[in-house]
């Protein structure tokens, strides 16, 4: 296992290098001169020339990449040209927000998706199954931003229960934090819950038809023990893979959700940075996001060991 682990971790480094190159190269494909958009309404030619020099825009691509990576290795992600804040500061400010949103959304997805999948599989063909399928269909086909605005209209404008948007740190005020995060986390978790439900259901159906489950039943074990202890545990392996893959959805979904609920997280940061051609912010944020994604996938791989003894 240690060998596997070491091999697995060793792949992380080249992946990150590749990712950093990709991020840098892809960004160059963005049309338009970043200095022009950063120069604002006035379009003063001296300002544009100054920005070109400041951002090394006239240097060849590999040189610019070297500037950036050199900084990254020293822990310097650069500085936002738009508002002068260091990118590292922005990342540290926003990362916990998006992580909280993502974790809450994933927790909501798990709490809804997995039990719904189990219930649907166990009660296959019953009203429960249809209900769960209906929910999944709804979750998959409802656009994030629309659901978000509908929830705001209901819970904030009509009922006045929840703040319409914004963010409060949980360390400042936990209640206000939860009130601000519950709607966006639900919106984000909702679609993933649907996917998890569908996969849990099909994995469970497969496992429930397996011989060992029949054996377990024949031994006279209670249905509860059979379903939870014997079936679900095995059915969870593909669900974990899927969960890890859905983390990507989570991170990209966060972009839209944060926009709707005006949550100052990674998503909003990156959208604004792309439109403002704030290159150092885009690069820094995407790099950190990719790193988080890669690490979470690593964690998911490790989680296989926990649930599947055969891999140990």
């Amino acid at each position: 296992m240690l060998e596997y682990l070491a091999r697995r971790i060793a792949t992380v480094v080249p992946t990150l290098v590749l990712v950093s190159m990709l991020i840098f190269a892809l960004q160059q494909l963005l049309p338009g001169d970043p200095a022009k958009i950063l120069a604002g309404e006035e379009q003063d030619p001296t300002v544009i020339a100054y920005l070109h020099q400041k951002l090394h825009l006239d240097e060849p691509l590999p040189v610019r990449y070297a500037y950036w990576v050199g900084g990254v290795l020293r822990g310097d992600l650069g500085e936002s040209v738009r508002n002068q804040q260091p990118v590292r500061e922005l990342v540290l400010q926003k990362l916990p927000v998006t992580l909280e949103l993502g974790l809450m959304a994933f927790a909501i997805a798990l709490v809804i998706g997995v039990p719904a999948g189990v219930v649907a599989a166990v009660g296959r063909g019953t009203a429960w199954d249809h209900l769960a399928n209906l929910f999944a269909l709804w979750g998959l086909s409802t656009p994030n931003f629309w659901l978000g605005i509908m929830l705001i209209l209901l819970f904030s404008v009509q009922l006045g229960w929840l703040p319409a948007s914004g963010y409060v740190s949980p360390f400042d005020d936990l209640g206000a934090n939860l009130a601000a995060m519950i709607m966006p986390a639900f919106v984000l978790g909702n679609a993933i819950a649907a996917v998890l439900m569908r996969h849990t259901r099909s994995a469970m159906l497969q496992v429930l038809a397996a011989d060992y489950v029949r054996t377990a039943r024949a031994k006279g074990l209670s249905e509860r023990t059979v379903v939870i202890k014997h079936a679900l545990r095995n059915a969870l392996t593909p669900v974990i893979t899927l969960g890890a893959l859905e983390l990507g959805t989570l991170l990209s979904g966060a972009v839209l959700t944060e926009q709707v609920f005006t949550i100052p997280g990674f998503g909003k940061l990156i959208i604004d940075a792309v439109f403002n051609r704030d290159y150092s912010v885009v690069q820094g944020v995407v790099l950190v996001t990719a790193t988080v994604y890669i690490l979470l996938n690593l964690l998911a791989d490790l989680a296989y060991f926990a649930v599947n003894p055969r891999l140990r």
Partner: protein
Amino acid sequence: MKLTSRTLWPALLLAASPLFASAQTLRVGLAEDPDVLDPTLARTFVGRVVFSALCDKLFDVDEKLAIVPQLATAYEWSADNKVLTLKLRPGVTFQDGEKFDAAAVKFNIERHKTMQGSNRRGELAPVTGVEVVDPMTVKLNLSAPFSPLLAQLADRAGMMVSPKAAQAAGDKFGTHPVCSGPFKFAERVAQDRIVLERYPQYWNNAAIHFDKIIYTPIPDATVRLANLRSGQLDFIERVAPSDMAKIKSEKKFKTAQITEIGYQGLTLNVGKSDKAKETPLGRDPRVREALELSLDRQGLVQVVMDGEATPGNQWVAPSNSYYARNMPIPKRDVAKAKALLKEAGVPNPSFTLLAATTADAQRLALVVQAMAREAGFDVKIQTTEFATSLNMADKGDFEAYILAWSGRADPDGNLYSFDACKQPLNYAGYCDADTDKLLKQSRELREPAERKKVYEQVAARVLKERPIIYLYHRNWLWAFNPKLTGVRNIPDGLLRVTGLKMGS
């Protein structure tokens, strides 16, 4: 009352939300996150909204766009219009306690002119030097007469920052600005909030009735409005025109509709690149006239802006004192447009209309397409994201481009950079020696009546060549808490905090 979970839950949430923030806090919803908060480097409209509470200027403009005193109490031009003498307001301090005086003005003007990346350099180009006459008097020497200077000093170029703080912070000053406005900088979390706190030693402290202002950028107009409705905000700018009728009919909020000093228009490539010569639209003024005649501005305003704009055909709105009455808004005349196209030998000219992805630009493009079709135009719409469209415009890689301008108080700010030869915003590529002469002359004249005469001549030339077909002037749409009083409708669209008060 028994506290059941049903009553407790919302009660807890309410208590936890900023709904019950102190009544002395003004919470403002902005349509975008401002850029750097350094008046020298700043470049966005939305940043100016925050500056109007943070940084006082030498002058301000009033509801009629007249120049009024702020940090300068009086001014005097020399006989040759090349020296502007300013009398400064005594007893003013910066938010770090430093004194505001003539030396500070000198420092600031020089900073605007010399700092790397300064966006003010162009606005202050004719200023060659600043002389401190005495602690409360300062002279600005100009290379040539430049009447728009007062208006420049009533905007970011006239904003005064603390020399001591600016020297200490260098190019990072924008992360912790220190000015002399009624509110001082407290905190900024990018894309989340900008918090300003009252500066108790402000020179006009009696007119300030809030302790704190929180600016929250909320780009989505629907969500911004939802925040106002749920009581999380007291004031929102740039309400979606389509929401305005409903807000007014509900009577729950006060609203303001102010005709902007900018405009929405179609920039036509008449000489920016070879493309201008390749198309009838760029080549032949008759085709451009036909395009203008095919458009019904009132219809555009109704359909695109839900009526929340004023039709116009010039760089200033018809209500502006500099509007050239000799060139009124042409009425839609499809028959004449068709005749012109026939005369030009192109009864069905086609062109591509470049439009950014914003909802307004998209709607405008569609309506222009439909209206122009009736006169025989075949309009193709090309949609790109704003940064790309700007780049294409700059390269001259377009035939027609939907571009709005946020406007400046002096007409020169809406005109010179767009219509004088080789200016940075002259995307149309219009260049005419006589127009250039007139534009320069308008800058040298001081009397508004005389300038207006020159602008009438400019209008007679430029509006016939049509580098830009001006369409309408949008309304600044604000909605706010009905208890809020003292909101001033100043056409630059910036909320002034002096005199603002929250009633009980």
